[in-house]
């Protein structure tokens, strides 16, 4: 791109950024104050943290669809991945990295458990805990201790779908009682913890799967030849 064209595009970009900033500053304050409504109904939600109350109770339907979308994304990836035999075993990693992963992963699992439990009364919850679990799995793979996934076996499939199934089962039972995801007051906390525990496990596996399915390279002859020439 030559000088004047670049200048014109840059000018347009700056003008757009300015217009966006002006539009955000010009926004009227929200007509409905949802914070007040959440704070008023927090005691009926079964948890003490407003974000968890909104995600799992007041807007539980959104979270149900969210985990379904994530599961569908992974299913799509598994559908296009080629499950040929003879996949690459985990590459031998630096002994330093192996030791570090061995030390860090138990702590990460502990942190995920804490985040899951803390979600009831302070920032935390299933999504963050699942992300930490997924990071632990990715670290194990990079350290050469966990092979990449070609096609998941039955137990893994159950783990991937388990969180969604638990959520769906709770919703179905509650639907037969009256309304979708309207928890009975005395069991709300326990039901939310049950759903979040399932979500943590499944989210960890799904997010790790996004990495581990992509990391699985079938051992094609050209690639192994390239590796031999390097070594």
């Amino acid at each position, binding site marked *: 791109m030559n000088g004047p064209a670049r200048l014109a595009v840059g000018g347009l970009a700056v003008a757009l950024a300015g217009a966006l900033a002006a539009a955000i500053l010009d926004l009227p304050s929200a007509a409905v104050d949802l914070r007040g409504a959440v704070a008023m109904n927090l005691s009926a939600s079964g948890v003490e943290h407003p974000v968890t109350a909104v995600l799992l109770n007041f807007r539980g339907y959104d979270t149900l669809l969210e985990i379904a979308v994530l599961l569908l994304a992974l299913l799509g990836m598994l559908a296009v991945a080629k499950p040929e035999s003879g996949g690459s075993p985990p590459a031998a990693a630096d002994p330093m990295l192996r030791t570090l992963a061995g030390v860090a992963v138990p702590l990460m699992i502990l942190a995920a458990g804490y985040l899951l439990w803390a979600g009831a009364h302070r920032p935390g919850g299933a999504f963050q805990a699942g992300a930490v679990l997924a*990071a632990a799995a990715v670290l194990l793979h990079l350290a050469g201790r966990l092979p990449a996934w070609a096609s998941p076996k039955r137990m893994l499939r159950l783990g991937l779908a388990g969180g969604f199934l638990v959520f769906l089962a709770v919703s179905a039972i509650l639907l037969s009682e009256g309304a979708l995801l309207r928890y009975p007051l005395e069991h709300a906390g326990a039901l939310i913890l049950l759903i979040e525990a399932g979500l943590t496990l499944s989210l960890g596996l799904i997010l790790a799967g996004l990495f581990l399915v992509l990391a699985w390279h079938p051992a094609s002859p050209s690639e192994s030849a390239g590796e031999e020439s390097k070594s």
Partner: protein
Amino acid sequence: MNLAFDALLALALLWSAWRSLATPDLTRAVVMFIVFGLLMALAWARLDAPDIALAEAAIGAGLTGALLLDALGAFGKRRAGDKP
């Protein structure tokens, strides 16, 4: 003090975003993207949104960064395989 920190944070965010987009070196772009994600998590924490800060640090910086680095590694391996 707080204002100075916020101004520094905003400048660092803009700078890392610009470096990530403008650098011709892909490895540096990915590293700057991870730096941007961590700074963004700090910004969310400063905005009193610790939930979003946790999610940004774990998913935005951590997992996405790992995916990008892995993609970079796969590209490098393929290129090395092309010219033995």
